């Protein structure tokens, strides 16, 4: 911090505006996604096996969190049932693979069936407002677990279903974990890209208005009901994709997969990653996978306690989620650097990143003025 402040006083090019304009340069904007793509393409080849498996698992849950983000982070409808759609996707995949269906067909079904289920639930649930939707969605995992046990013809009962598929093709010369990670990266990457375009475009704006104020939305000719149903359906579809990936990586599903507790954990992961943020979804997935590993490494018999403590600390320090960390750091640096004191911008701790882009914009303006 001290060096940063000395820098900013001694040289005209303070680090943070420099960073901003650096990011805005056109070639950087073009090159950045390319660099990410190259890194992601090379990473599976160089990482050790367990790291690959961990990254693949992160991918699975990042997609699940992304789905939750569409309905909750962007559209503001509390959903406690996301794990149900992951479970349905996983079961559809497992059933299809066990019956030797074409894998592309399995994938399509693993997307469509949860989406249809989500649509049906949403048609009823979206008529309700606020927490009532949460109460309806709570029912999904609670119904899902006994349902999976009862329909043992399709689900294998409480013993669950195993399915190994997507054997590594010979010509690739890859290890299984590398091949799996590539599949996760490609499928997950496409889902992330599509969702990014969705929430940045016309639909995203409509979602944001529905989240902000339903009456305003109605007055602008945006039907809150239809957009809530749409958001919920897309979330279910993405949940189905994550279920497919779950089977790809974990290769086993049982009623435990969709137990209610996991739904809450997903929700916590979304809030911690950053609600209404694409990057936040990835961080949420990382959280979901890495924190149990971390706490296991510290003390395997205290995992629940440690996870709770970490959760509280993060929410206390970063109410906007991990995705808000760069912003908080930038703010802190600016505050210590320029010593604005009380004139510092009224921080909005609850600023979810839906407003995050707006906050970023205003920061840019402020720096422009400074």
């Amino acid at each position, binding site marked *: 911090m001290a060096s940063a402040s000395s820098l900013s006083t001694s040289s005209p*090019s303070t680090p943070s505006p*420099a960073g901003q304009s*650096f990011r805005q340069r056109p070639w950087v904007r073009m090159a950045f996604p390319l660099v990410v793509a190259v*890194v992601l393409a*090379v990473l599976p080849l*160089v*990482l*050790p*096996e*367990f790291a690959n*498996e*961990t990254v693949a*698992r992160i991918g699975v849950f990042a997609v699940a969190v992304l789905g939750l983000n569409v309905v909750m982070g962007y559209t503001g409808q509390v959903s406690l049932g996301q794990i149900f759609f992951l479970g349905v996707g996983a079961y559809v995949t497992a059933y299809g693979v066990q019956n030797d269906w074409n894998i592309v067909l399995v994938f399509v079904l693993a997307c469509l069936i949860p989406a249809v289920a989500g649509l049906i639930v949403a048609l009823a649930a979206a008529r309700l407002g606020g927490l009532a939707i949460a109460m309806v969605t709570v029912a999904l995992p*609670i119904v899902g*677990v*006994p349902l999976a*046990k*009862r329909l*043992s013809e399709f689900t294998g*009962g*409480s*013993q*669950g279903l*195993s399915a*190994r598929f997507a054997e590594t093709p010979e010509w690739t010369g890859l290890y*299984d974990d590398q091949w799996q990670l590539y599949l996760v990266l490609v499928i997950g990457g496409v889902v992330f890209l599509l969702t990014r375009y969705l929430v940045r475009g016309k639909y995203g704006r409509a979602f944001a208005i529905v989240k902000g104020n339903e009456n305003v939305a109605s007055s602008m000719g945006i039907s809150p009901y239809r957009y809530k149903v749409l958001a919920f359906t897309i979330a279910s579809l993405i949940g189905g994709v994550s279920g497919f990936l*779950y089977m790809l990586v*974990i*290769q*086993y*599903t*049982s*009623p*435990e*997969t969709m*137990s209610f*507790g*996991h739904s809450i954990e997903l929700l916590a992961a979304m809030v911690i990653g950053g609600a209404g943020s694409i990057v936040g979804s990835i961080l949420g997935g990382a959280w979901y*996978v890495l924190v*149990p*590993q971390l*706490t*296991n490494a510290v003390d*395997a*018999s*205290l*995992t*629940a*306690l440690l996870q709770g403590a970490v959760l509280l600390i993060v929410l206390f320090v970063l109410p906007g989620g991990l995705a808000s960390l760069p912003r908080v750091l930038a703010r802190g640096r600016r505050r210590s650097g320029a010593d604005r004191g009380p004139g510092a911008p009224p921080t909005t701790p609850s600023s979810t990143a839906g407003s995050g882009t707006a906050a970023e914009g205003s920061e840019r303006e402020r720096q422009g003025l400074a």
Partner: protein
Amino acid sequence: MNTHFRSRTARGVAVVSALALTLTACGREGDGGGEGGASASPGITDESVTLGITTPLSGATAGPGTCTVAGVKAYFGAKNAEGGVEFGDGKTRTVDIRALDDTYDPQQAKANYDQLKNEVFAMTAGLGTPTNRAWRDAAIADEVPQVLVMTGDPLFSDTDESPWQLGFVPIYQNEGEAFGELLASSTEEHKVAILSQNDDYGEGYVEGFKSAIEGADNIEVVEELTYEATDTSVDAQLTELANSGADVFFNAMSVTPLMISALQKAQQLNWKPSWFLPSNTSSPGAILEPGGAAAYPGIYSVSFAKAPASPAFAQDEDVQAYLAALKEHGDYQDPPAFPHCQWSWMVGATLEQAFAEMTEPTRENFMEALRGIEGFQAPLMLEGTSVTTSEDGQPAVSTLNVQKFNGKGYDTVESFG
């Protein structure tokens, strides 16, 4: 300005490539060091062998889960203190245990397995059917032993289906059958009410029980109901069963709180039959005492392990050694509340038997040695029960004694009543 940015970018590129190089260097080294000879499997050297466990250490199943680690840890902790375990190849190795928490989540169990598979010699003792099934296929593909695991699922004892697996505890059918046989040998007439969990667990018990009472004229099943493992109350079922006038209640229930409330509710209804409880929900301290089980004419369960709380075994040498080791090496300070602690101790003893027969430090050789144990009476085992691993389709322990609650612990009984 421009040079400033360029240098930043260059530095970034340099850092990334350096990182990539380091990672390449440390990647794919999985075959392990050459310490234990060229052919040695991962997790074993001339001085030590590491075993992995993934089991629930937090959440609803943490109680029994903690026990599955404590027992085997205590067993090998005591052995290590004496210098180690002697292997069939003439070397003496210490046994290290690496246990990870899976919270009874299959996904986490698979993650734990992935983490451990290249560091440990074998996986063992983990509790739970879904959590063990989650990585069963992967263990077969990776040729990692998944042995003496705590699940009553018959799949793990099928050598063709599960070449790298072996279950430890009796399968559900074994337990139901043992009780059915005892009841069928009774000289009196009995009316039986059955309540079972609506899944393969409950079905397995009922299947075993019914096959044993088939053809016994003195036994009549008067009422049979089920409940869901997710139910929070079985009061309605109990009321209905109480009306049947049954004098024997076969309750295949795996949920600890439900079992306690069932024991209490039946008393409130003034229905006092003899009970049969599955081995994993029959703990005197954790279930029978809070449930007020003393009010019933008889509480029966099956077991193959000496109950340390029972006065009959208070002076037993095995039990004393076990309790001392559990405190000293197992990180388990209280008296063991679940039989899983004892089972896990026996797992340790069984593994030692297998180690003693191992002539090469490889996983293949270990599996071969493990499958060759016959009639081994592990410490803490009851008279008449033993470990036999050579029988296809049966877990390591398939013999059981029926026991009756005596107010403090259990006594083995030969006849009903």
